[in-house]
């Protein structure tokens, strides 16, 4: 380790942070480490890792160990995404969403902000966050467009689904102790349209980003040699999880499809009883009764399918995307380690300036440790979110299904009751037969 780094704490020491970390976060003047870390958007890029930076992997650890409770009482930033509007220019048509922010954080000048953002802006934000925190788990964005299912970009349901997903995306970031402190995030929430455009143009240019990509590809080709066991375990889990959640997504979509087709037939079924009642005398009441029951069940079925589409389908789909995010995060972690390993090997074999190389290797080693800790910390957090989200989605579905059957039950029981309160005719007939 270079001598210029202060406050070295060994990576094995863990310092627990109290539940309310917001207080700590805001003490920027006192905590140099944190300030430097959160402002520097270029940390992830190994080539720009500044040796003078007063950060150590060890001290970073505290930032990533947080207690389970990060509940509402510590929440100090509230974001809503709503009010989609269509904009037409000469070149294109696009949708913007209103992003409303309410916060008490001191790094924000005001307590309330209202801006309009389009999907591209969200993509940009995600990209920046992933750049800066390559091994943190950033909640996925909804997809660019849905290829299957022939959903058009400007279809009402599509826009609403997207809006909800964007809302969730921003709130997840707001809830994240590290990501919510990102400058890019702040700019996203507060800057006016033209300000944002200007801001976007800063930062590493296209070429340097290209260089990064090339290096990443090279690393992935080489592959990592000594991946720590825990990350292999996570990778295996992610593979399995991805398969399972993809299956569940498909099954649920299939159920929605089948249920919709059932509904279509059911809509035709009720009227056949009404048609029949037109030819009858004694049976009219019963036939119309049955037709009415079927019609009411149709309404309930429609509601049930709607609920499935609005709640379970998006939730599962979100986690399909999450699985892909996790795979990417693991890959990036691997690449960081691979790069370090490559340079390390070079040290043993190549005849270059050993001192300069050693310095580089030290930095890379720190980087690996830092990346691993970030991921480890976020991994637990992600698992908890996943459990919470999916449990809630499945619970909601089960509740809705119970409600659906209860309503249909009431419909048929009412009909039955109306029939059973006419026993007089029946008994007369029984006598003669």
């Amino acid at each position, binding site marked *: 380790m270079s001598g210029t780094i202060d406050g070295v704490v060994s990576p094995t020491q863990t310092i627990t942070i109290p539940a309310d970390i917001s207080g700590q976060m805001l003490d920027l003047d006192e905590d140099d480490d944190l300030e430097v870390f959160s402002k520097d958007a270029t940390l992830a890029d190994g080539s720009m890792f500044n040796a003078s930076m007063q950060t150590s992997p060890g001290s970073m650890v505290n930032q990533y160990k947080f207690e389970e409770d990060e509940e509402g009482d510590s929440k100090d930033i509230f974001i809503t995404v709503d009010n989609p509007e269509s904009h037409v220019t000469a070149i294109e048509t696009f949708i913007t969403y209103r992003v409303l922010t309410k916060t008490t954080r001191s790094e924000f000048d005001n307590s309330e902000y209202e801006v309009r953002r389009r999907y591209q802006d969200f993509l940009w934000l995600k990209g920046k966050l992933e750049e800066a925190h390559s091994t943190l788990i950033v909640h996925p964005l909804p997809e660019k467009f849905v290829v299957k299912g022939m959903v058009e970009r400007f279809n009402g349901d599509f826009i609403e689904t997207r809006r909800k997903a964007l809302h969730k995306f921003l709130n997840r970031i707001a809830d994240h102790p590290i990501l919510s402190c990102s400058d890019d995030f702040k700019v996203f929430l507060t800057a006016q349209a033209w300000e944002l455009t200007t801001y976007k143009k800063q930062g590493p240019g296209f070429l340097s980003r290209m260089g990064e990509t090339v290096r990443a590809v090279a690393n992935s080709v080489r592959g990592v040699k000594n991946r720590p066991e825990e990350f292999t375990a996570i990778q295996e889990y992610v593979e399995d999880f991805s398969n399972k959640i993809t299956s569940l997504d498909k099954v649920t979509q299939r*159920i929605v499809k*089948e249920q919709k087709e059932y509904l279509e*037939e059911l809509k*035709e079924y009720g009227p056949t009883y009404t048609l029949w009642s037109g030819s009858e005398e004694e049976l009219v009441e019963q036939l119309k009764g*049955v037709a009415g029951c079927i019609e009411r069940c149709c309404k309930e079925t429609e509601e049930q399918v709607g609920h499935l589409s609005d709640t379970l389908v998006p939730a599962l789909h979100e986690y399909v995307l999450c699985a892909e995010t996790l795979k990417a995060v693991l890959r990036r972690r691997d690449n960081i380690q691979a790069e370090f390993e490559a340079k390390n090997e070079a040290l043993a074999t190549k005849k270059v300036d050993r001192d300069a190389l050693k310095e580089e290797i030290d930095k890379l080693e720190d980087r690996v440790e830092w990346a691993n800790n970030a991921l480890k910390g976020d991994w637990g957090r992600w698992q908890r979110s996943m459990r919470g989200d999916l449990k809630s989605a499945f619970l909601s579905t089960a509740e809705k299904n*119970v409600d659906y059957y209860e309503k249909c039950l009431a419909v048929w029981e009412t*009909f039955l009751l109306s029939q059973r309160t006419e026993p007089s005719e029946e008994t007369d007939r029984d006598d003669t037969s």
Partner: protein
Amino acid sequence: MMADSGPKEVAVIGNTDLTSAELDNNIKNTMVEIEKGTSLLRKMEISVAEAEKRTGKNTVNMQEIYTVYLIETRPVDAVTEGITPDSLWRRYSEFELLRNYLLVTYPFVVVAPLPEKRAEIVWHKLSADNMDPDFVERRRVGLENFLLRVASHPVLCNDKIFYIFLTEQEKDWKEMVYETGFQAKADSRLKAMNAAFRVKNPDGRFTELKHYSDELQTVLSHLLRVRARVADRLYGVYKVHGNYGRVFSEWSAIEKEMGDGLQSAGHHMDAYAASVDDILEEEEHYADQLKEYLFYTDALRAVCRKHELTQFELEMVALDLASKKQQKEELVTGTVRTFSLKGMTSKLFGQETAEQREAKLQVLEQQIAEGEVVVKEKNTESDEFVKTAWVDIERFKDQKDRDLKEALISYAVMQISMCKKGIQVWTNAKECFNKM
């Protein structure tokens, strides 16, 4: 109602106005007959107990596989004494023969239909295969139902051929049926259709009944078809949930905290998927009840056709009589009112002699006398038919209203049962998800 009006009148109108006394009488007779009728069922317990496959040679001497059904009968009081029933085997074609015999012999009766020969309105789960065990089972039930319907019919239950069909295997029953000569009595379809087209004054009630049976057939076919599609779709929905069971189970293997909840939720999803089989099997019974009445429309139409035929025949003989009377009148008065070839030739080739005219007159008078007897007979026949047919039609209507009301109520009960199962499964699943 006689057709002995003047030469212009040919119309013979069926008896549409029963006096109230006659109506009462009819009802009384029906009651008596029901008493007599149900006496067969009171005496005897009838069931179609089993179905079995047999192989044998058919009429073109080729090997075939067919199903036979076991008919069991025993006196009602013997049930409690534990005496085993008498039994014999019959195949579907014999049931068909029996029914055809009854149709021809009692044309005024709305004869109960047989179950489908082939499964026609099916949804995908049921194969259209006659050898499919579910189909055979439902056919067995249908055949039993047919026998019970016939046995409880006030008129049909007394038929000897029917009784032998149920009870005696040794005699060549088929031979006996043919010996009744019923086939000769059968009216050809062509004749019936011709009559239907040309009859002038059918009884309004029968016309109405014919329309009703056409409507009922259309409406019920449509209903049954849509129901089958709904059942198919419902099957799909339930069965796809079975996939949840499988995936939850696999997923639970990689989760620590969620594992138990997922695993047990999965079991409930499997149970949900499996429950649809019973639900749809029950509904199939409901569909069979409706199908019986769909097939009954054929019997209704048959009765209407018979009426049209008898009415048409009556109209024809009445027309013939009127024409003969007219000819006689012309001969007597010497005036020719209607064109006839004979008239023309006599104009051309001279008048007939007095003797020739006298001879003709005598023949005509003979024919008229005979004709009047025939008309009287046909009229009586027609009246009888209308009377007896209408009694049976009223009986049928009451039976239909009762049966279908019951069927609709049982359908509601089925739906309630299905909902209750759904509530239970999803409540259980919810508890499991809570443990996740």
